[in-house]
């Protein structure tokens, strides 16, 4: 038994003196460069995966909406909403062009004054109730 252990020890000693290379002077710096490149690549990959997931999610949502509503109905509703928005915008532009600027200024100042008066009145009433 003891002889076997001696032989194992001798074998270990011999195995440890077998020549093996030492890491080169550039080992750590090259490993670091490769690590940083890999980390960057991983970040890019994660961003692309996120984008792809968002697009897939959007596609699934669109498909679900398509199954609940008729696609023709959805398109008609969107077209109607766009037409309403265009009508309102045109109306506002026409009204603002017809009314003279002086009227707009007096309207703005009057509104501001009314708002301030109402705010002060409400504050006074609130203070009185608190007392």
């Amino acid at each position, binding site marked *: 038994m003891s002889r076997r252990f001696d032989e194992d020890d001798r074998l270990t000693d011999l*195995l440890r*003196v077998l020549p093996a290379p030492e890491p080169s002077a550039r080992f*750590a710096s090259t490993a670091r460069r490769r690590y940083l490149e890999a980390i960057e690549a991983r970040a890019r990959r994660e961003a692309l995966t996120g984008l792809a997931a968002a697009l897939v999610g959007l596609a699934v949502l669109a498909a679900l909406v398509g199954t609940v509503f008729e696609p023709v109905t959805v398109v008609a509703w969107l077209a109607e909403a766009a037409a309403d928005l265009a009508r309102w915008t045109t109306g506002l532009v026409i009204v603002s062009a017809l009314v003279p600027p002086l009227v707009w200024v007096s309207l703005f100042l009057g509104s501001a004054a009314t708002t301030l008066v109402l705010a002060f009145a409400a504050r006074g009433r609130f203070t009185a109730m608190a007392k």
Partner: protein
Amino acid sequence: MAASGSDADDRRAELELARRARRGDAAAFDQLVVRFHRPVLRFCWRLLRSPDAEDLAQDTFVRAFVHFERFDPERPVLPWLIAIARRLCLDVLRRRKVTAGLEAMPVSDQTAPSAEREASAREELRRLDRALDALGEGQREAIILFHIEEMSYRDIAAALEVPVGTVMTWLHRGRAQLKAALGGAPIV
């Protein structure tokens, strides 16, 4: 064998470094490289016997700490690194035949009192080196990790992804073949 308090602290520190490296902390990565590059490189070199060993050793660190989510925190870091290095080396070996560069090997720095004894010791090392190369894959890896890297049976089993009993069998058979190759010649 239960890990002592110091071992447990070391493992915790290694794990923390590995987690930081996973998050992109280059300083933590550097510390892990400094701590483990020698055993990983030696292991790669023993399997490949070519200058590719350094490239694969670096690749081992990059893969390990960039894809850290596959790490088992119950295991120490070195067996895990060895397991990754082993897979990379086996891939390379499968792709091409690597021949041992025995002739180009540096002379051991072991001193001998005479030229005759030095020649004898050198011859013995050559025989051992050839015998180590001639061992089966598992036996060679187990011998390297146990006798050269001083890893425990449990850690070797984790690194080679086999049961502890298999490691013990490989070691027993590997030792027997190496001793037979040495042929009872005197060891200087």
